[in-house]
């Protein structure tokens, strides 16, 4: 199963966010559109902070959305690649990690608070139930491929844990690496 999913997402969770509220994010994301802070054709900001444990605040773009994501009760930055994914899974994953990293670092720089992301851990989700159903056999195969792809990024195999075994939920893994993503990838080029 080397097929690239139709959509692929990487989420970095916060290690520290003393006071940060979703309401702080809206102006930041709107500024990112004005200043083209993160890569992509940025379209709009949508605010779902009224919904508990939901997508929070989303910066919608053509190729990939950036989310201040609260799903699962874990606040974090989620990069959701929707289009123009490379045909190779490793490359697609690398692209998503770079997108999440760029946005997380930009947010650390701009948030009105001393926030910090945990760059040793990621959540990878496959938004494609046709090619990546969340079923035991398919999940095991996907996990093996993901481990290999992440090893290329982090230099060592991360620990992987499937997030849900309920087939209705997206296939997703929590990945904990011995090394920080920030140290493992070249500094992302931020659009300016």
């Amino acid at each position, binding site marked *: 199963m080397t097929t690239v999913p139709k959509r692929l997402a990487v989420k970095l969770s916060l290690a520290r966010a003393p006071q940060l509220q979703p309401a702080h994010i809206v102006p930041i994301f709107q500024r990112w559109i004005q200043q083209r802070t993160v890569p992509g054709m940025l379209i709009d900001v949508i*605010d779902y902070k009224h*919904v508990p*444990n*939901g997508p929070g605040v*989303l910066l*919608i773009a053509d190729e990939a*959305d950036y989310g201040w994501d609260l799903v*699962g009760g874990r606040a974090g930055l989620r990069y959701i690649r*929707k289009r123009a994914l490379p045909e190779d899974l490793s490359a697609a994953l690398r692209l998503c990690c770079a997108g999440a990293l760029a946005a997380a670092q930009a947010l650390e720089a701009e948030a009105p608070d001393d926030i910090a992301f945990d760059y040793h851990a990621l959540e990878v989700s496959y938004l494609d139930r046709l090619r990546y159903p969340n079923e035991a056999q398919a999940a095991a195969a996907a996990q093996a491929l993901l481990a290999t792809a992440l090893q290329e990024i982090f230099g060592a195999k991360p620990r992987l844990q499937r997030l849900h075994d309920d087939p*209705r939920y997206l296939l997703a893994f929590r990945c904990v690496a011995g090394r920080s993503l920030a140290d493992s990838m070249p500094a992302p080029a931020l659009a300016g």
Partner: protein
Amino acid sequence: MTSWKERLKDEIPLEMTKLIDTYEAQMSLRRQGKMDEKVFAEARLRKGVYGQRYDNGQRHDGIRAQALAYPSGDIVKGTDTLWDAPGMQRIKIPYGGLSARQLETLSELADEYADGILHITTRQDIQLHYVHIDDTPDLMRRLAAVGITTQEACGNSVRNITACSLAGVCHDEAFDVSPYADAMTQFLLAHDDVQDFGRKFKVAFSGCAGHACGLVHMHDLGLLAQTREAAGELQKGFTVFVGGGLGTVPHQAKILAEFVAPEDLLPLTQAIARVFARLGEKKNRNRARLKFLVAKLGIDEFRGLVEAELESLPQDPRHTAYLDDDADLAYAPAKAGLRLNGAPLPTGFADWYRSNVYRQAQPGYSVVTLHSPLGDFTAQQGFALADIARKYVGDNIRLTVEQNIVLRWVADADLPALCRDLRKIGLGGAHAGTIVDITTCPGTDTCKLGIASSRGLTAELRARLIERINLLPDAVRELKIKVSGCFNSCGQHHVADIGFFGNSRRSGNHKLPHFQVVLGGQWQQNAGSYGLAVGAVPAKAVPEALAALTERYVAERAKDENFQRWVKRLGRKEIKTMLKPFMQLPTFEENADFFSDWGDSRVYTIDDIGVGECAGEVVSLFSMEISKAESTHFEALLALDDGDYRRADERAYRAMLLAARALVRTKFLDVGDDSDRIVNEFRQRFYDTELVYDRFAKGKFARYLFKRHTQAPTRLDEDYAHQIIDETQLFIDNIHSAEQRINGVIVG
């Protein structure tokens, strides 16, 4: 498995497969430029695939207009609607009825193709936002596999048929209307006789006259359940209403037939559809709803035409076949009905019970309302809710026209446990149906027509009201607030105690988002009467204006006096005086916050006007002149209150003339005050040149003036006065917008 098409081929009814395959083929043709864009747009809309804000490739970011260069370039999916631009998918949920499996599928689609949110509409539909058109055929197949269609969810077609969410369990209903709503849905779906309408056609069923759940008076076709005694037997039937509607100018429906037996219901509907298709306006979409045809012909002539049509209608076994299947739609409870049995209650249970629980007609059972703020819930909540539904009620889930979800047939003994389970997933909040449970349309968040942020305002009002909910007197707790992002009324602001609809005004060289305050609408009695605008308040001043209004209501209301009666007693003049302090416009320098909308940090703009030439003196002249039009409009409102319909008409017409004159004088100071001259100058300078055209409604509002100028009213009654006052308000708003466009606005 290569595709959803392949995987689901045995699970989708053949008819649905054909419709979706045809649509997919049309998509290919359009991409190759082999299908006309307008034809494709209608085909797409009839599949519920809608445009969204910024799909024309322009977005104002608060500093400048940015071009959005989508990868597919100039290929469009409709006029000014770029192929790659994210769009909205509307999904019909007939009378809001959902099974647990269907809810799961909708949730899967939300987090796979959209932004993870399911939005409940005021027509009991579900909408997904930010969907790419290329994903829509698979999305439709996955829905079709669980018995859901998007067919005719938008476009000039029969929209989702709505019905009371309490149908079948209500104390006050004549009988359960669900089987009839279901039968009509099946019968009309893709029916030949509903393919040639000039506009959409909305149908609603209600089980009783008194409550609001069905809202039959504001529908093209409203069916009100009735029973009558005949030959010693109780017969079921419907009072049939036609020609109601909200939209820019609301119309109350008229009675077409007092009592129609179930076996005659579908033939009658088919005859109405045929008359509408044949005689309804096709060219001017602003006058193409059934309400205009009924108003033009008069209800008696319309009735005659329908009766003649019925005579020639071919026999169709489907007209009555469903009556034999009546029992199939009777909802079986998942569990035995047991009363609350003294089990420990969660904290806050009493509050939740008071606002969110309705005791069913069937002893031992209740309906529980799940309040979904702004009509939104997440895919994860959807999965968890499906589990909760299976545990307590099976497939007895419905969406409501107030953008909530109800679980029906909950055994009373399960209420404490259900309350706990709902709280765990964030759907156990109290205060459903109270003042905090505000209805809102998408507004500027995603709607192409939005002028102000209805969702932003709603979120703000909701947050403020929730903080104080326990301090609010019952009279205020029970008020209904409804918000629309523009005059189109998707948020149903006309039928709220307090409604708001978005518009904009200018202060100096900047625009400010505003909301018209609409008071005195009636939600009960099936949307029994419509409110009228009393004045526009800057968006940022709305919370304070609302507080002033409700505080005064509480302080001054007579015992048992409801809000509509209080509004009427106080009179518009006094209300306007009360709101006046909130209508004052600061300059940008005095309070820049007023120049951003709620939930938006950008300096407000509704289109991509950019920097225009500022003509300071002309602006101030215009402001003075347009304010005369506004006060004259207000006099029309007062005349309406007094029942002086002749004066209401005269004042409304005069207000339109003054507004037109205000605009004319920005270009031609010496126009004078002769009405013919004002109208001619206005027509030549602003209408023929299309300068006054609204981006979507085009010249519709200007034609209100032309119509009144050339035709004195043939009748002077309350309906007419209400209508011309509404039209005048829209005309004045249109003049404001045109002036901003023409004379330029500095937006940053």
